[in-house]
C-alpha cells in the first residue's frame, strides 16, 4: 500500500500541471456561488445559513464531477501510459486508490474554496457551525461517491466524451431516484415501499440529512460503501 503515495502525488500535481485545475476551480467556484446568489437567494433569505449554497450541490456535481473524473483512466488508456503504469511494481488496487484519492483531494480543495462564504455568513450573523461543518463533511463524502461512479465509467472506455456522458447518465439515475418530483411520478405507478427503497439509493436522500446538521452513520456508510463498490468494479474493469 506504500505504492499509493507516488501515484497520488503524480495525479494530484498533474491537475496543476495543466490548465485543468485552474479552469475547474474557477468554474466550480463561480457556478456554485452564482447559483447560491442568483437562484438560491443566499442573501434574500436573510438567514445566517449556507443552505442556499449547498442545495445545488447534487445538481452541480452532476456535471462538474464527471468533468473532473472522466480523464482518470480514459486519458491513461488513450495515451498508452496505462501500459507503463501497470508494468511498474504497483497492484491495480493501489493504482485505483492512488488516482481516486488524488481526484477526491482535488474536489475537496474545490469545495473548501467556498470557506470565505462561511466567513461572510459569520460576519453577517451567527450561524450554526455544527450544521455548516456537517454539510461540508456530507458534501465531500457525496463528491467521493460521484467520483467513484466517474472513475469506474472512465475505466470502461478510452474516449473521454463517452466517459463523461455515461458518468452523467449514471449519476443522474442515482440522483433522480431521490428527487421529490421524480418520486411522485414513481409513487403513482409503484407501491410506496418500492419507491422508498429506490430513493434510498439516491444521493439527495442521504445528503439532505447532512444539510440539516445530522451526521447519521447510515448516510456515511451509504456514501462509503458506494465508493467501495464502484472502486471494486473499477479494479475488476481494469484487470479484465
Amino acid at each position, binding site marked *: 500500500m506504500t505504492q499509493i503515495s*507516488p501515484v497520488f*502525488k503524480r495525479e494530484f500535481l*498533474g491537475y496543476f500541471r495543466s490548465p485543468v485545475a485552474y479552469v475547474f476551480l474557477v468554474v466550480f467556484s463561480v457556478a456554485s456561488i452564482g447559483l447560491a446568489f442568483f437562484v438560491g437567494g443566499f442573501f434574500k433569505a436573510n438567514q445566517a445559513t449556507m443552505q442556499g449554497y449547498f442545495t445545488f450541490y447534487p445538481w452541480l456535481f452532476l456535471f462538474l464531477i464527471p468533468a473532473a473524473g472522466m480523464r482518470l483512466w480514459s486519458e491513461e488508456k488513450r495515451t498508452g501510459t496505462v501500459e507503463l503504469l501497470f508494468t511498474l*511494481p504497483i497492484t491495480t488496487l493501489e493504482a485505483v486508490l492512488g488516482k481516486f484519492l488524488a481526484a477526491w483531494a482535488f474536489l475537496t480543495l474545490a469545495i473548501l474554496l467556498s470557506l470565505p462564504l462561511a466567513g461572510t455568513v459569520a460576519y453577517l450573523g451567527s450561524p450554526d457551525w455544527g450544521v455548516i461543518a456537517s454539510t461540508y463533511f456530507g458534501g465531500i463524502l457525496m463528491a467521493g461517491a460521484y467520483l467513484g461512479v466517474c472513475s469506474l465509467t472512465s475505466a470502461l472506455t478510452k474516449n473521454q466524451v463517452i466517459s463523461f456522458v455515461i458518468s452523467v447518465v449514471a449519476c443522474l439515475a442515482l440522483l433522480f431516484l431521490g428527487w421529490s418530483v421524480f418520486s411522485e411520478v414513481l409513487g403513482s405507478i409503484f407501491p410506496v415501499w418500492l419507491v422508498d427503497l429506490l430513493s434510498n439509493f439516491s444521493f439527495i436522500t442521504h445528503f439532505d440529512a447532512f444539510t440539516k446538521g445530522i451526521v447519521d452513520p447510515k448516510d456515511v456508510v451509504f456514501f462509503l460503501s458506494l465508493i467501495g463498490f464502484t472502486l471494486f468494479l473499477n479494479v475488476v474493469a481494469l484487470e479484465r
Partner: protein
Amino acid sequence: MIEVKGLVKTYGPKRAVDGVSFRVNRGDILGFLGPNGAGKSTTMKMITGFLRPDAGTATVDGIDVTVDPVAVKRKLGYLPESAPAYPEMTVEEFLGFIAEVRGFRSTDAKRAQVDRAIGLTHLTPVRKQTIETLSKGFKQRVGFAQALLHDPGVLVLDEPTDGLDPNQKNEVRSLIKAMAVEKAVILSTHILEEVDAICNRVIVISQGKVVADETPASLHARKPGARLDEIFRTLTASDV
C-alpha cells in the same frame, strides 16, 4: 533469466500468440523479429505482466509472472512501443515519479537514480522540458531512461530505435550492447540490420509461432549469400 513456455493469447477468433517458447540468459541480447501483427508486442506484454496469458507461463528469475506480477515487475525494465509517458510532466518530474514507484523515496536516492538515467540516455539538455514538447527521438530516450532507471537485470524493449535518426540509433545500440554484459535483453525490431549489429540471438515469429530461434550467423547460413530480408520473407511467407 527469462523463460517462456507455451505462451498463448487469443483475441476473439484470432490467436495472436500461439505457443511461443524460448529462454534468454544473462548476457544475451535477443532480437525479436516478425512482421507487424505477428505477436511480438503481445508476447512482450505477457512477459512484463501487462497482459494475462491464456495459457503457458513466463518466468523471470524463476518467478512466474501470473503468480507474483509485482515481484516480476520489480526486476524488469520495460520500454513499451512508442514510449508512452505523461505529456504534461517534465523529463525530471517523470523520471522522479518512476524512481519513487521503484522504491527510491529519499530525495538523494531519487536524485541519484534520475541523474544516472538522464546521463546514460543523454537527456541533460531537455531535463526541464515537458515531455509533450519533445521530439520523437527525445521521447523515445525518455522511455528508455525510464526502463533502465532502477538498473534492472532484465530489459524488455519494444522497438527501442523506432523513430530515431541514424546517429541516435547507433547510440542506443551501443548503449544496449554495453549494458547487456550483465543483463538479459529482449528487443523487438523490424530493422533487420539491427539484428546483425547488436543481437547474439534471433527469434523470428510469424502468425504467433516461433519459426526460427538461432544465432544471426546461422540465420544467414540458411541461404548463403542471400540478404537477411530475403531469408525473413521466406520464413514469414505464411503471414502475408
